């Protein structure tokens, strides 16, 4: 069974009913667009999660009149804890500035006196500190002399984390669904092609063609369809991204603090290769199920 014969037969089959293949590729492009869009969303969600996950933090509000030496000592102790990534000392003036930045309103609050903002230690935690451990640290810190209050932002982070988790979860479900869909479409297309050329297949078999000879062109067709559709849909996504990214990307960046990015070329290549593999696989499954003479 030589490849050149198989290729030329695949080419002939393709030309014979190119509309079938065109429609199949179109369906696959839709499926891959879903997959691509999902990957895109997941990639950006991951970036958000990473960024926001990194900024998991505690604020340690200090009692008025705490001495500079006490603060330094406290900072040193905190920095030696394994869960702590960084500690920043915020003077009342700095706190006021940051507060005004965050409220983003040029309101009368600008006239608040600096003294109403307490000095604080902003503690960035390492990623993945377990809940119980965090609570313990907070309890311990609360008992320190210069500490007036510990702010852990936990309510907010729990909300955010659950939303991200749900998004990532539904994204991977969707990705799996799309993969199944691709295999199903290819399988169906090949099934159609088999039904369409059942007379040819019968003649081939009756003339002494081996199973490999009969199957090879279908597998080649499936692989080509899968990879062409994947490639095409990535290009479409890129175009759509280029068109939309300006406006949406800005809004996205200002809302999340993370700039929108397309997934990496490696992932794109993986999608194309995966598309070809899924095509060949769908083809083989279909042949196994529907091709018997």
């Amino acid at each position, binding site marked *: *069974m*030589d490849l050149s*014969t198989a290729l030329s037969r695949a080419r002939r089959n393709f030309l*014979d009913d190119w509309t079938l293949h065109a429609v199949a590729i179109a369906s696959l492009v839709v499926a891959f667009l879903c997959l691509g869009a999902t990957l895109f969303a997941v990639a950006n969600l991951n970036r958000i999660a990473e960024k926001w996950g990194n900024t998991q933090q505690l604020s340690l509000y200090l009692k008025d009149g705490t001495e500079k030496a006490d603060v330094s000592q406290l900072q040193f102790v905190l920095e030696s804890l394994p869960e702590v990534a960084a500690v920043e000392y915020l003077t009342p003036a700095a706190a006021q500035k940051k507060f005004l930045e965050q409220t983003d309103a040029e309101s009368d609050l600008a006239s608040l006196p600096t003294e109403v903002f307490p000095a604080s230690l902003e503690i960035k935690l390492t990623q993945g500190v377990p809940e119980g451990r965090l609570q313990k640290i907070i309890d311990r810190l609360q008992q320190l002399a210069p500490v007036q209050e510990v702010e852990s932002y936990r309510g907010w982070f729990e909300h955010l984390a659950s939303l991200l988790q749900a998004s990532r979860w539904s994204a991977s479900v969707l990705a799996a669904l799309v993969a199944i869909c691709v295999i199903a479409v290819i399988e169906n297309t090949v099934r159609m092609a088999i039904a369409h050329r059942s*007379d*040819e297949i*019968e*003649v*081939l*078999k*009756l*003339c*002494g*063609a*081996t*199973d490999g*000879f009969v199957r090879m062109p279908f597998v080649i067709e499936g692989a080509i369809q899968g990879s062409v559709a994947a490639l095409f849909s990535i290009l479409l996504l890129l175009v759509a991204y280029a068109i939309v990214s300006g406006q949406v990307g800005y809004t996205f960046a200002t809302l999340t603090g993370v700039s929108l990015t397309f997934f990496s070329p490696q992932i794109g290549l993986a999608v194309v290769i995966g598309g070809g593999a899924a095509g060949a696989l769908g083809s083989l499954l279909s042949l196994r199920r529907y091709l018997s003479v």
Partner: protein
Amino acid sequence: MTLARESTTRSVGRGSTSFFRQRERPDSSKHAKPILVMEEVYKYFRRDVPTLKNVNLKINRGEFVFVTGPSGAGKSTLLQLIYRKHTVDSGRILFSGRDVARLTKSSIPFLRRNLGVIFQDFKIISHWSTFENVAVALEILSIPKRLIRSRVAEALDRVGLAGRGNEHAGDLSGGEQQRVAIARAIVTEPALLLADEPTGNLDPGLSIDILTLFEEIHEAGTTVIFATHDHSLLQAAPHRLVMIDDGHVIEASQGLRAWAARTQSMVAS
């Protein structure tokens, strides 16, 4: 019968032009043995009524055998058992000494490569050209394109369709399609040619031409099994005759002329 015997002897010197035949049957001592043996073959399509009953048939290498019988007798079934479209329900069929029924699925193609089959319903791909329909049999054997072209042209020429390779097979007349099917069967120069009603759509003149073609191929050493209803062909060529009647296979070489004459007179009345 005499003629058939003679050609058996003559077949010793054949096959030197076909690399395929040489490749598939390198053992030259084999041709002394029968090419096809059927032993107590039964085939049931319905539970109680066998289509073929206790068929015993031995066909020697280089023979020419007519198979006849009424519609639905089992002629096509007999041939289909040989090329493993169906399998026997009991008994065995030996082709070149090997039991056809016990071939694994993956070795069936290699059985079929030794056979040339003309199907009763042609099995021509109507959206292919005439050339492609014939060439497919050679493509399967991975024969080089150049060789395919010349051999297909030769085969089409032999069935009277020279120069019509580019025509759409679906547009051909019934008889022309049948001749394409014949060309496809003979182009591989098979060891055994199974012809199922190969002249059903041909006029008497062409039928005789095709019969003559088969006899030529037979002269060159190919074994031919020729299923037909056409009594004028049976009369025209004095070969071994096998009749299928009520599932039984009866050798009819002795009473052939008398029987054919009887049918002929019945038809003419």
